[in-house]
């Protein structure tokens, strides 16, 4: 049998693809960074859009002015919401809008022609924005350390390690969830509607608007067991020391289970979507 005629095994092709991606990645990062710099006004507006934590901070600050609320004093609220804002900006992505626009507009075709998996390219675009994001959040990190430094649990090196791992995990989890939601555009006309629904649930259950333990009891129960917990509440509460090292380690395991679930779900939806995909005019 002619060896050239046998198709490469799945693993060999996946391996080749990864190698190609690794070679292209640095260039993609550079391109992405210059894009962010070019559209800096848009970037700043997008940062300003994430203003809800500050409004909620003002509200809880008012509530806590006559004594602590549960475990939270005024300083704890400052640490919680500033930390939440920082984590949110470092881990969130606008992938859904991009994917659904490219799928509906048909511009995804150009990406599919390139010898690189579109999801790699998209992840590079997002990673490239990180330096700018770090730049923007650094003043808030400074304020956070100045006002609530002694309360932050990350001074313990073990906790700091778990926190760093949890940030990376949150990024991956959100990325794959966005791939799943974005791929819905292959099948539905109103994938952005589903995304809005997801945003609504996320803002309540992830601890973004309200610390989970201050939610009405049954909502808090649901929140703790949902994947939203791994996206924000877990890294954030590890940072502020509301979850001790032991609990945090267990939640890190849970986070990776969710990452596996979302990765399988997202990639499956993507693959079956690509098969249905018919570009307009293409």
């Amino acid at each position, binding site marked *: 049998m002619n060896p050239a005629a046998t198709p490469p095994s799945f693993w060999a092709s996946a391996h080749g693809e990864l190698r190609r991606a690794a070679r292209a990645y640095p260039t993609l990062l550079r391109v992405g960074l210059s894009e962010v710099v070019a559209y800096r006004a*848009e970037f700043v507006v997008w940062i300003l859009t994430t203003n809800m934590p500050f*409004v909620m901070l003002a509200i809880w600050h*008012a509530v806590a002015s006559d004594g602590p609320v549960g475990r939270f004093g005024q300083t704890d609220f400052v640490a919680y919401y500033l930390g939440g804002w920082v984590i949110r900006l470092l881990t969130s992505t606008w992938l859904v809008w991009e994917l659904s626009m490219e799928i509906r507009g048909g511009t995804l075709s150009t990406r599919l022609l390139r010898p690189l998996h579109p999801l790699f390219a998209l992840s590079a675009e997002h990673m490239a924005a990180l330096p700018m994001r770090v730049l923007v959040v650094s003043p808030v990190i400074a304020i956070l350390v100045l006002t609530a430094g002694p309360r932050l649990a990350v001074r313990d090196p073990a906790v700091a390690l778990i926190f760093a791992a949890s940030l990376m995990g949150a990024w991956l989890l959100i990325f794959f969830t966005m791939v799943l939601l974005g791929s819905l555009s292959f099948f539905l006309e*109103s994938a952005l*509607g589903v995304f809005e629904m997801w945003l*609504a*649930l996320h803002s309540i259950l992830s601890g973004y608007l309200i610390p989970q333990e201050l939610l009405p009891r049954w909502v808090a129960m649901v929140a703790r067991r949902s994947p939203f917990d791994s996206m924000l509440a877990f890294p954030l509460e590890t940072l502020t020391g509301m979850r001790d090292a032991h609990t945090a380690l267990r939640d890190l395991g849970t986070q990776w289970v969710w990452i596996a679930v979302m990765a399988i779900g997202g990639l499956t939806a993507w693959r079956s979507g690509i098969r249905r995909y018919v570009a307009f005019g293409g």
Partner: protein
Amino acid sequence: MRLISRYARLFAVQLRMSMVTGMQYRADFWLKGLTAIVWLGVALVPLFSVFQQRATVRGWTFPEALVVVGCFAVMKAILEGAISPSLTSVVEHVRKGTLDFLLLKPVDAQFLVSTARFEPWRVTDLGGAALVFAYAFRRLGHGPSPRGLLLALALLAVATLVLYSLWILVVSASFWVVKVDNLSYLFGSLFDAGRWPIAIFRGALWFAFTFVFPLALMTSYPAMALLARLEPGTAIAALGGGLAFASVARLVWRRALGFYTSASS
């Protein structure tokens, strides 16, 4: 007189077009209606959480704060059903240069772009608002006085005008800095703070939400009018300020239009 009837007819046509377009996507209609209800629920959860901890926050009880949420839902329905959709499409026109076609038509351009698109399913939001009002006033044990109701309606009308004017200013900005599509998200996210009584905010946020992005006028003042706790002086200032603001926005729009350079230049 003929001018007014002409514009009224044009308005009816635009509205019917939006209805027809909306009806085409039935699954979308239901999904969006459902989303609107989920969002209202989301707006309520923080309120529950806060008032679970304290009976009053800066002088507001839970049912009183619910009246603010009701006004918030009404304004949100107006914003997302009648104001945002049209004006988002203007930004698109400016970017692509297709605003030319609208400017050529023999009617006022601002009228034409402002009535281009409505999203009729936002009516579900108004239904949600009605439920919130009903529950809040039952908890309070008394309805609003007729005078309070009239004043609240007047305030809501002026608030709509102000909201619309703010949007017109944003759109005017798009003549200079082309890429402002995500300004609409900024707008929406700032607006979300309107579900809280203005009394909760202090310092910079209070100033910003009273004078710069007047959320107080949009949600808190109408609610205070319904609860009969709005001082007459504040009401008059709010009404006058709102009208003045709207005329400034109209002037800015006229000027901004002069800077429109189409796509080819």
